[in-house]
Structure formats: structure tokens, C-alpha cells
């Protein structure tokens, strides 16, 4: 088992279920966060740990994926890996992204 699949095995909560309760207007045409082409496992594992939305994922086979759609726009990944595997971090287009009803 790799570091990433080890970590995956410890995640039992369905965070997507929680994200689905949020109000979003997803900008399908523009990814506001971009990763480098081949992110290292070590750096990716950091983002799996700190992203509060669980957007940095790995499947059973250890294949990494990232989906900006559920982003909470906190900026944590930019602080954690802004010098390593986060290539670009912008806010979503205005009016797009998350809209807090409570905050």
C-alpha cells in the first residue's frame, strides 16, 4: 500500500454528502485552482490532510484526482503547497463558487 492509499483507508466520512448541502454556483468552464502536471505523492498527501472539503482524492489503485467544484475558497492548499504542486490559485469568477447561507 502506498502512503496515499494508506491515508485513504482511514477516511470513513462521506464529505461529498456534506458538500452537497452547500449552495454553489460552479463555474464549469474555469478551474480556479490548478495543480502541476505530475504532483508528488508526498505533497498530495499534505493536501489530502488539510483540505477541509476533501477535494484532493485518491482511488483504490492510488490514482490521484482533484475537483475544484466543491471548493470552500479557504486558501489552505495555497498556503500548504503554493510553492510545490499548486500551480495556480485564483478565486472563482465573481458570483461563482460557494455562497454561504450561514457562514
Amino acid at each position, binding site marked *: 500500500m502506498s502512503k496515499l492509499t494508506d491515508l485513504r483507508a482511514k477516511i470513513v466520512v462521506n464529505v461529498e454528502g456534506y458538500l452537497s448541502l452547500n449552495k454553489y454556483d460552479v463555474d464549469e468552464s474555469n478551474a480556479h485552482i490548478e495543480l502541476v502536471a505530475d504532483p508528488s505523492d508526498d505533497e498530495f498527501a499534505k493536501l489530502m490532510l488539510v483540505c477541509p472539503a476533501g477535494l484532493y482524492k485518491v482511488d483504490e489503485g492510488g490514482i490521484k484526482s482533484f475537483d475544484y467544484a466543491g471548493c470552500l475558497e479557504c486558501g489552505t492548499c495555497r498556503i500548504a503547497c503554493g510553492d510545490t504542486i499548486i500551480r495556480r490559485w485564483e*478565486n472563482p469568477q465573481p458570483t461563482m463558487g460557494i455562497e454561504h447561507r450561514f*457562514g
Partner: protein
Amino acid sequence: MSDFEAIVVGSGCAGSIAAYELAQAGKSVLVVERGNFAGAKNMTGGRIYSHALEKVFPNFRGEAPLERRVACERISMMTEDANVTMDFGSQDMLKDGQDSYTVLRAPFDQWLASKAEDAGAEYINGIAVEDIMKDGTRVVGVRAGEDEITADVVLLCDGVNSLLASKAVGAQRPPASAVAVGVKQTVELPTSVITDRVLANSDKEGAAWLFSGYPTQGTFGGGFVYTNKDSVSLGLVAGIEATMNCGKVPVYQMLEDFKKHPVIAALIRGGKVVEHSGHMVPEGALNIMPELTGDGVLLAGESAMMCVNLGYQVRGMDYAIAAGQMAGEHAAKALSSGDTSKVGLQGYIRALEDSFVLKDLRQFQRVPGFMEGFGRMFDGYPQMVRDMLNKIFIVDGSPVPPMKKSMLPIVKRMGIMNVLKDTRGVMRTL
């Protein structure tokens, strides 16, 4: 001739108050907010200490969308299998100017924005400031969408994740060691159920509750609960560097585990999660504070890293409101005198220096470094206290040894020198 005398970027606590002050002083001011409404992108734990807000809006208690007045402070040390809580309430903490309230930012910030708008500030929501316009070293306006809008002074109040502060004043991106990530769920429950479960005296009063230990599963950080009118704000704050290097599970899994702890499970039983949110908390205080002024620009609130987390107390919004007020007031003065250069805006810095804002941030300057090295607070001490209280409270019929004999081994496991050192460290740091 500029389009506006002042532009405020971001409509949170600092931005709305600054805009309000500028408008009150008769200045033309535009607020640009990237969310569809003020508060749409904002999040707090959270509780606001009222003293700074009261200075701007003496009648806020009757007007603002406050959730509950905090009548009960709780601090817990939690392990997976135990929890010990200190529960404090006093008449003094309810007095005007010493009172604090739980709030939700979507409604609260809309109210703040309405105050600024009523005072004459112009608002555009749903437009993002994408860039700062400069003429040499001087900030002369903002680029928002297709538009270039000029102003004699720009107030950057765009929050902890400011993408503009580096161009405006050369701010560095703060290091992962100086910032924490907060993850929160808003859990809906009937008003009276919340009142009963936290033993509040009425539906207008509630609790603020902080936890160390199990919420972050031994790494740097802590959990929180704030009771709103008909919801509970429940979450945790975890140091980014500590978590990315030493975390065992992701922060959202920590939150889920925290929710399953018997103490929290009993509090939110039957509740419905209605929102899952995240926000960074700047914990580096003065060490990561950018330049607060430049030619034609000043910063207030979280874009200036104005926040303090002492473990038993978390503050940000009262600093933002006070700084926003001073920023607005001194930007207006600078506009009147015709000098909004860095020198002309010095009044803002002096006002901050003379106020609790920079005095507190200076006072607590050593807290972040100390807390980071204070691993025992997130792991060892909660376990030590659990073991001691187990010895005191559990009766199983076996002969009871002298207290000294049962307690000493527990303290020794932690190391008596460590306990003494940490006690001294806490005293020195605070």
C-alpha cells in the same frame, strides 16, 4: 480626478465599517464585494466581542442579527474516551461593553453592509477586484472585470486569503506554520433544545466552548462549539503545517470523529447539518503582519492578519471592526488634507498603536511560537487529567491508596519538569 475618493475591497467586518466611516465623513466611497451579497464568502467560528462594534453602533444590540449572548464559557480537555470541562459564567461578562455574541456571517455582514449603504457608501456585489492599479509605487485604483476604477485611497479588506496584498504592499504569503485551517458545520436544532442542552437561562443566551486534545487528535489546534439561535456552530481549527506533516486523518475526518464523541453527540443529537464551511485563521500575529499602509492604500482586518488565538479565546472580528473604524476615519482625514500617501496615512498606524489592536497583537506576539511547541497540550495533558480524575472519581471497591501515591505516577509519566516548564512557559507567553 479619481472616480471615487475611496474604494473598499471586500465587505466583511473591516470593509463595511471602514466604508461606513468614510461615508459618514462625507467622502465618496465604493465597496466592491465579490460575493453575491456581503457575507456570502465569509465565515466565523464564531463569536464577536461587542466592545468595538458598540463604539460604531451603540444600538447594535437591538438592530444587529445577533444569535445568542454568550453567558457561559466552557473549556474542555478531551480524549477519545473522556472529557473534562471548566464551565464559567458571571454577571460581569453580560455587562454592556463586556458582552459577546454568537453570530453567523451571512446575515451579520449583510446588516453591516446595510449600515454602510444607508450612510451613503455605494456598493457593487458580485464583482471581484482582480488587480490593483498602480502608478509607480502608488496605488491608484482597482481593476474589476472590464472596468478600471480609480480612487485616491484603496482600503484592502479582502480577508485572510488576500490575493491583492502582495501587489498593494508587497505582502508575503504567510508560511504554513503561521496559519491554521478551520472547518465548521452548522447544525440545525430547535431553539429550545439548544437552550436546554447547554443549560442556558433563556433562548437569548448560550455558550462558547473550546476543546483541546481529541478534536485535532493530538496535533496543534482545537475544537469549538458556539450556540446560535436555532443552530450550533461546530468545528475545529488545526495548524496547517502541523496537520500536513503530522496529521493522521484529514481535518474533515477529525471533525466527524469529534462529532461522534459522546459529549458532542449528545449536544447535536437529532440535529441536521445545513452547511459545511472552511476558513483560514491567521495565527502568526505580528510575525506575519504585512505593511499596513502604502501610498494610496491601507489594510485592515484579516488581510492584515489581525487575529489572536490563545486556545481559551479566539478574537478577530473585534480587531477587524476597530481597525476598520480607524482605517475609515484616518483615510477620510488624509483625503481632507489632500495627502493619501504612506506618510499622509500614518494617522491610521498611530491610532492602531494607541489602541488595543496593536497592543494586544504585540502582547500575544509569542503565543504562536509557544503553542506550536506545546504538543503536550493537544495530547499529553488531556490524558493526564483524564487519568487523575479517573483515580479521584471511580469507585470499584478496591482499597483506596493515599492520593499522593495514586497521583504521582500519573504526573511522573508526563514528567514533573515538563509540567513546571510548561506552566512557566504559559505565564511568560501570556
